[in-house]
């Protein structure tokens, strides 16, 4: 029992009244996966802690026994559907906390799997780091399973860097590689690959936005996106471009290209976003501003935001493009 082994149930309850606990779970077999998560869930339910499980579709099947035993007590999220963009999960978790704010809560969240696109894995790692900031002080224990035997070493290393504690081989211990999330996010750890040679490039800031939307609409459509995804991408682009107009000195560069079946649209400007949580928290729907990047995250399959002294880059990715 890797979780209760650190303390008796009574002590554990007291300990958990504190802040956010973020634990990576390195598993090596299906049996270990089911056993540990089963114990985690059962323990939480015994303590009266509302529980949410966010795992890929195939893992929902693995956990079928646990889930059917507690179908009325556990929330289930299919990460393949909702969590392709890891930023969306933050909103789901926030709502879960709000609905259960009188209780300590438990979340199982698995976002990395073998074969997942490298860009997506990179963004998962960044969001794992940011979770330590976004959820700081929340009365929540989050257990993040990683397929230790089959994931790339870089993914496992990122998990070790972004989780203060690790469960591995039945032992829970502090992660020796854990890195301060601010320092990690501001380092080159999650830097983006440069746009490919030959990508399409145009500047924004001199004409009405409608003219730029037309270019994005035409480009996305030509790349193979269907009308719905094209509409979503155009809307997300408009929000990013509006930010450039308002916060990025009114001028920026847009690049588009296709990559691994995704249409990519990058908006870059000289502005600075000094908040790592931008685009993650559910905005006030009646506020005058502050919705754009959150909306982009809800619309796009992946949004990569990087900002520093050289400026800000917002890279929007939408799957459904023709593969090269």
């Amino acid at each position, binding site marked *: 029992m890797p979780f209760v082994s650190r303390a008796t149930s009574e002590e554990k309850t007291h300990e958990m009244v504190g802040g956010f606990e973020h634990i990576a779970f390195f598993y090596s077999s299906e049996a270990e996966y089911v056993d540990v998560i089963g114990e985690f869930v059962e323990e939480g339910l015994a303590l009266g802690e509302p529980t949410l499980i966010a795992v890929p579709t195939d893992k929902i099947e693995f956990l079928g026994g646990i889930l059917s035993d507690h179908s009325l007590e556990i929330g289930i999220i299919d990460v393949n559907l909702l969590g392709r963009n890891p930023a969306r999960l933050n909103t789901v978790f926030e709502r879960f906390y709000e609905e259960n704010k009188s209780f300590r809560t438990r979340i199982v969240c698995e976002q990395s799997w073998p074969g997942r696109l490298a860009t997506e894995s990179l963004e998962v790692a960044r969001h794992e780091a940011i979770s330590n900031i976004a959820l700081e002080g929340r009365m929540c224990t989050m257990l993040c399973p990683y397929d230790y035997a089959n994931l790339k070493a870089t993914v496992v290393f990122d998990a070790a860097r972004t989780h203060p504690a690790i469960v591995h081989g039945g032992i829970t211990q502090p992660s020796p590689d854990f890195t301060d999330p601010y320092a990690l996010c501001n380092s080159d750890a999650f830097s983006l690959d440069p746009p490919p040679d030959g990508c399409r490039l145009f500047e924004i800031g001199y004409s*009405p*936005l*409608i003219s730029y*939307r037309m270019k994005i609409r035409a480009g996305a459509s030509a790349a193979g996106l269907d*009308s*719905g995804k094209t*509409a*979503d991408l*155009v*809307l997300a682009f*408009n*929000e990013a471009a*509006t930010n450039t*107009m308002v916060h990025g000195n009114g001028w920026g560069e847009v690049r588009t290209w296709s990559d691994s079946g995704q249409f990519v649209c990058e908006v870059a400007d000289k502005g600075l976003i000094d908040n790592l949580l931008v685009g993650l928290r559910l905005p006030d*729907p*009646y506020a*005058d*501003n502050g*919705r*754009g990047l959150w*909306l982009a995250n*809800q*619309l796009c399959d992946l949004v990569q935001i990087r900002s520093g002294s050289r400026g800000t880059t917002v890279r929007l990715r939408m799957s459904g493009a023709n593969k090269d």
Partner: protein
Amino acid sequence: MAQLILRPPPAIDHGDHVCGLFDSAAERQWAMEEFVVAGLAAGDRVMCSCERNEQESFVERLDIAGANASSAVRTGQLVLRPAAQIYVPQGYFDPELTARMLIRAIDKAVEDGYCGYRATGGLVESIRDAISVSQLQEYEQLLEATYSTMPAAGLCQYMTFPVSLDPLYLAKEAHSMFVSKPAWDDGTLSVTPLADRIGIRLDGEVDEMNGSHLRDVVEELAKSCGSTLAEIHLELAGLRFVDCASASLLANLAQARGNLRLVLHDPPESLRRVVGLFWPESYSFELCPS
């Protein structure tokens, strides 16, 4: 008040007694011109209140619009008269006498071979003080009875500024129809009033350049409904794009008024997504089809 019906000026027809509530002289002029052009084209005699010093330019504008108004003035199809000559011919306002003169003018137009009669006029500054609120109310009720039973149509002009609230309220109470606002097009978005419901058709794209104008148009429609529940229809099949900020302006407007519901017909997918994400349970928006 009866169910509110909006009429674009060219759609005003025999039996209609329409209140034109204008925010500016330009808007009033637009409605007058559209009303006169449609009346002449329909083969009606058209009477229009127009001060002497404005008549020449008014006819010139109608000619440019292709109405051949100069010729209509010569033949007697188009009659232009100063407001004082219509409303206070003897130095005072007599609602009954003025209404009888209207009935006579309608009969005369038919006798002269016209299909019917159309009249449009308003209280200019110089005669406004000569007409009391109760007289105005009586006159509008007589007009309602006249237009609804004769081959004639009337467009009553009122300016929202400057006017005291009570006469305006009474004027609105006396009409079953309002003239709609002019169509608007900035090259990116075109806004066209609906003829059969309170609402507008939008074609093009809405973003930070024109979102606040759209909000103003919707607010104006909502105001014309007074304090009753306002259900405003937006026909959006021709709309390609709405940005989040503009959708938010409408949501904030509806929330602030508290009695406004926007019925979105055939909205673009992007607007469906935005409404679903930000205002999923809001009474302010109704998506059709849902």
